[in-house]
């Protein structure tokens, strides 16, 4: 049933392989700059956050941010480009594969980009900065990174399906996606929020993702409810992405 998805995903991976060096250079530069500026440059002024040096506090979040950003960006721009510019989606639709197979392929492509780019940033941080974590914590961390990348890939598919103009895509990213990431405890502990706001922030899947991922990587702590929250959000967004894409294609 997913033969078509596999063919499209393999096509996307072929393109990624061809441009892997430039893709990774572009994607590593941003979080690395933030890490050096805030984690190293500001560390002396900030001191310990939640009992950890600031560079250690933000590093897991930067890896997670890279992964989910890459997943979102790949999905939204790739879908928009293939639908509105290159018309490749239309060329897929006149073959005997289903619309669902197309959207599933695109979701997996975004997800794969997220995982690869997140891992690349993690490796670079590990290699050239003092950031360290016990290797056995990696498995717990992946339990967040995988559904987190899937969640953002599906969100990107929804945006790329609904929005026809590139400027709208940029606005949504600036107004919705980046605030969701930045306000989820990536750069500061949730305890910094006024107590009345904390329950609302905690309800966000992005908070569960960033908070849970940090604790998993740094302390090896397993926050099962957070994993469940992120996974459930990813599942709901996946269903929504498939339904919305199918609806759009039937118009």
């Amino acid at each position, binding site marked *: 049933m997913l033969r078509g998805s596999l*063919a*499209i995903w393999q096509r996307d991976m072929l393109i990624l392989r061809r441009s892997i060096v430039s893709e990774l250079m572009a994607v590593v530069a941003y979080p690395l700059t933030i890490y050096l500026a805030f984690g190293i440059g500001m560390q002396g002024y900030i001191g310990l956050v939640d009992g950890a040096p600031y560079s250690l506090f933000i590093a897991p979040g930067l890896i997670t941010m890279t992964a989910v950003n890459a997943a979102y960006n790949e999905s939204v721009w790739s879908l928009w480009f293939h639908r509105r510019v290159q*018309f490749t989606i*239309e*060329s897929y639709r*006149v073959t005997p594969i289903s619309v669902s197979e197309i959207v599933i392929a695109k979701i997996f492509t975004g997800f794969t980009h997220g995982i690869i780019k997140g891992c690349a940033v993690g490796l670079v941080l590990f290699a050239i900065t003092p950031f360290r974590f016990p290797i056995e914590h990696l498995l717990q961390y992946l339990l967040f990174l995988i559904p987190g990348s899937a969640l953002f890939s599906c969100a990107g598919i929804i945006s790329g399906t609904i929005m026809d103009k590139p400027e709208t895509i940029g606005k949504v990213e600036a107004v919705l996606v980046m605030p969701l990431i930045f306000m989820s405890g990536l750069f500061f502990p949730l305890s910094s929020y006024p107590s009345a706001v904390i329950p609302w922030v905690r309800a966000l899947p992005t908070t569960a993702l960033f908070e849970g991922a940090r604790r998993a990587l740094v302390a090896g702590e397993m926050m099962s409810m957070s994993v469940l929250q992120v996974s459930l959000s990813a599942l709901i967004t996946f269903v929504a992405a498939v339904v919305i894409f199918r609806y759009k294609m039937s118009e």
Partner: protein
Amino acid sequence: MGCSDMPVPSIIINSLTKSYGGLTALDSFSLEVEQGAIFGLLGPNGAGKTTLIRILTTLMRQSAGDASIEGLDILRSGRDIRRMIGVVSQENSLDRYLTARENLELHARLHGMEKQLYKSRIDNLLELMGLAGRQLDFPDTFSGGMQRRLVIARALVHQPQVLFLDEPTTGLDPQSRRAVWEYVRSLAGSMTIFLTTHYLEEAEQLCDRIAIMDHGRLIALGSTQELKERLSGATVYEIEFSGQDIDRYVVLLGSMPCVIDIKQAGSKVTLTLECWECLSEIVTSLNGAPVRRISLLERTLEDVFISLTGEKVRE
């Protein structure tokens, strides 16, 4: 001829209607296309040709009516229909990040073809389309004509029974257009070809049968010859003058009641007359004029189109 000798329709369209809000793009459109024919759907931009192709290729649902391809209903058997059709859309939908060969391979895989089967098929198609030497290049480096040939090759990879060509030569230079015509002609008989165009010459050159549509409606159907014969007694003559004072004669001829249309291009004047008997009136009125030659022009599909729609083909 017994019933068994009747040509089998490959495409049956029955009262197909498509409305977008208050706009009716297809208005109770009905048609049958025989197996193995090259069928041309002619009409100006906005006539509803692309809407019809999008419905037949299962990209869009109709508002009313039904249609079938090779006996399969377009609503109920979308996947099976897509298995047996090839589509060349108006837009260039080639993947610019894949080489020419990779474009064809991806399409073959989407059709579920095995590698050993599609490899030789792609070799043959690239050879046939004159692209074998460029198979490892990206489509962005191709000319418009080469890209079009590659799109046609892609539509043929899985050996479709019905090929839809939606304005396949729009935007191509005359040389590339003729090259595409040659490829289309070479496919004749091996599959049903349903072609839309707003180029009258294209329909005339390629198609066994032609339907003319405008404003979502079918307004004429037949072979080129049949459609030309539908013209009333109107005949078209070309008068070539040798002198300088042609404008005076153009005004004179244009004022005659038997003249339906008059056009001047340099020393040549094209006259559309109500009937051939009118010619004697023309000759009489031109007595003493510096006429080099009067010749009867063969009627074209454009004449048919003007006669049926009252206007020229809108580009």
